[in-house]
């Protein structure tokens, strides 16, 4: 989902940067607020950032004969809500743009919208929806990570289609072309990422139970079955 440096026309680059900026600023405030008001959650916050850091560094082979990398942004979105990931995700993108020539400064805005805004929000929405229909924590986490991953690459495809409409078939044709590059490749990766997220949360439900209860993800053990604190 990294649009390479200089690969968006200046107008698009500026537009996406302006679109991403308020989310990132809001995200930065959300992180500061979280650390100030709940310093006991700082460890978990680190884990959420680290999870994205690891997953977005690893290129994995896929059935299409090309490779791609997962995003890992859904885990933090489930734990701390999406605004926090707007900052953490952008930090990851900045690291890769500056040190790895992966992505870029001119495309940082567009990549942040896909990776740090749309992905986490889509994942979080999917998590709430799964909960709404009676799914437990772990099924919700699985769905959240899969959806966050796919939504990120879908957004990148839309961004590229808007910037480079096909000469004959227009934006729709270009969208089909870029989805052809990203979408199928990404499906097994998204599922793998979902399984990794379940593994992470299985560890957390045992070892970080007080934190998850405070965040409203697990019901306190001692509380009555109904009307327990959320």
């Amino acid at each position: 989902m990294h649009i390479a440096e200089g690969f968006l026309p200046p107008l698009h680059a500026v537009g996406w940067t302006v679109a991403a900026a308020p989310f990132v600023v809001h995200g930065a405030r959300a992180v500061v607020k979280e650390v100030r008001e709940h310093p006991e959650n700082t460890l978990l916050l680190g884990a959420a950032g680290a999870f994205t850091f690891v997953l977005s560094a690893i290129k994995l082979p896929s059935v299409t004969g090309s490779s791609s990398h997962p995003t890992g942004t859904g885990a933090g979105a489930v734990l701390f809500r999406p605004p926090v990931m707007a900052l953490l995700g952008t930090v990851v993108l900045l690291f890769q743009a500056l040190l790895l020539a992966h992505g870029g400064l001119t495309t940082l805005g567009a990549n942040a919208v896909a990776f740090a805004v749309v992905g986490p929000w889509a994942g979080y929405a999917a998590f709430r929806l799964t909960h709404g229909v009676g799914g437990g924590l772990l099924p919700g986490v699985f769905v959240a990570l899969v959806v966050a991953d796919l939504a990120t690459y879908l957004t990148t495809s839309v961004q590229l289609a808007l910037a480079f409409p096909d000469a004959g078939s227009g934006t729709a044709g270009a969208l089909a072309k870029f989805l052809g590059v990203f979408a199928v490749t990404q499906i097994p990766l998204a599922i793998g990422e979902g399984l990794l997220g379940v593994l992470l949360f299985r560890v957390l439900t045992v070892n970080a139970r007080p934190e998850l209860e405070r965040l409203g993800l697990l019901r306190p053990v001692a509380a009555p079955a109904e009307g327990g604190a959320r």
Partner: protein
Amino acid sequence: MSRRTLVTVLLVLGVVALFAVPLLLDGGSSDYSGSDGRATEAIEETGYTPWYESVFSPSGEVESGLFAVQAALGGAVLGYVVGRLRGRRSSTPAAPPVPEAAEAP
């Protein structure tokens, strides 16, 4: 083997299989180029030339090392956090046993 351990093993095997099977299926005929790179090629085919270059472009070998550094940093922090959480739990003496199925609605 407890049920919990079995589920963990199955999950890990599932992840490994997801990425091993594509490699085995095609018997080494694909080059597994990155999808980001393929998108870049598709754009260049339209005649577009990038108007800005990366401020720092490591060579391929150095780049893979830096990717490894990124993964290592993330893995180290993740391991540190899980280790601390685990240590905290085992150092709390009278902690009640943790039932698995008590999830918020």
